[in-house]
């Protein structure tokens, strides 16, 4: 098991570095898909099948398609690195070192008495057993019932982002051309 985890993590790191180093956008987008798949595999090992599911479908599927279609619209412009990459590297190393220093106080991986595991005291798994009348998937129960307001908000954000994309990108369609002069006449 550990061997699989280490191999996965090494592959994740290598893929991320490859994405940073490659200049051809086509290859970068393909590597982004691979990166998503690898992180989905790791999420499966970390007991989050629901998230892994979504990450595989979103990251490797839809996100890749969107990036490729953006590339088709903007041309395969070569990605030229900045003249000096020393300053960004310095900033990144300093920030990373600070974050690693911060982890030294963190509860160890998988420890059952970490604050995350302890805080809601009858945990949601225990609470859902009585509340949900036998719905096995606690993630779904938590998503739709305990955190129902939150999910309503998230759904609205998705809707809003979709509307914004449509407002930005959709102009030269047939139906739009018919209604545009009409609206102009009304306003004048």
């Amino acid at each position: 098991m550990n061997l699989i985890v280490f191999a996965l993590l090494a592959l994740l790191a290598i893929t991320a570095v490859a994405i940073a180093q490659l200049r051809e956008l086509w290859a970068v987008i393909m590597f982004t898909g691979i990166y998503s798949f690898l992180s989905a595999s790791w999420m499966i090992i970390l007991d989050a099948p629901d998230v892994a599911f979504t990450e595989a479908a979103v990251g490797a599927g839809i996100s890749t398609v969107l990036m490729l279609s953006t590339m088709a619209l903007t041309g395969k412009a070569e990605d030229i690195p900045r003249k000096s990459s020393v300053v960004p590297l310095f900033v990144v190393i300093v920030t990373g070192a600070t974050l690693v220093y911060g982890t030294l106080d963190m509860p160890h991986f998988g420890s059952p008495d970490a604050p995350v595991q302890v805080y809601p005291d009858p945990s949601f798994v225990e609470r859902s057993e009585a509340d949900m009348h036998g719905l096995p998937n606690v993630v779904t129960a938590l998503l739709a019932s305990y955190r129902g307001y939150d999910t309503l908000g998230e759904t609205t954000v998705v809707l809003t982002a979709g509307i914004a994309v449509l407002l930005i990108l959709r102009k030269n369609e047939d139906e739009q051309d018919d209604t545009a002069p009409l609206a102009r006449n009304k306003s004048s």
Partner: protein
Amino acid sequence: MTGFPIIRIITKLLIPYILLFAFYVQFHGDYGPGGGFQAGVIFASGLILYGLVFGLHAIKKVAPPIVIEKCMALGVLIYAGTGVLTMALGGKFLDYSVLEHDVLPHWHVPSGQHLGIFLVELGVGITVTAVMTMIFYAFAGRKQV
């Protein structure tokens, strides 16, 4: 697009299973891993795959933009409508326990929390499917300038 017979045939074989799997994930989400967000994304990727292989024209016949556009809002409406319904039945907003009923108990008609989760997930699924498909239309319909 008339070439690539292998891609076309494999796509035609795969799409029913992708859509069926999306429905499974949607409606079985309370029992196994899954739910509205995942199902919406999987369903949309089935549609997008069809669009990629057979062209924007073909996919717009299957899922007309005018319908998908309405579905974007319909999903959120179902979600919020469930909340309003629970309020009308005397509970709090999105408090599904007032949805408890006794209709056909042996047919396993969802009730109470289960019914609420079912409706809400349905709304999420519809919105996510519609938004992802609409975003694909917006990008694919754009011409390079």
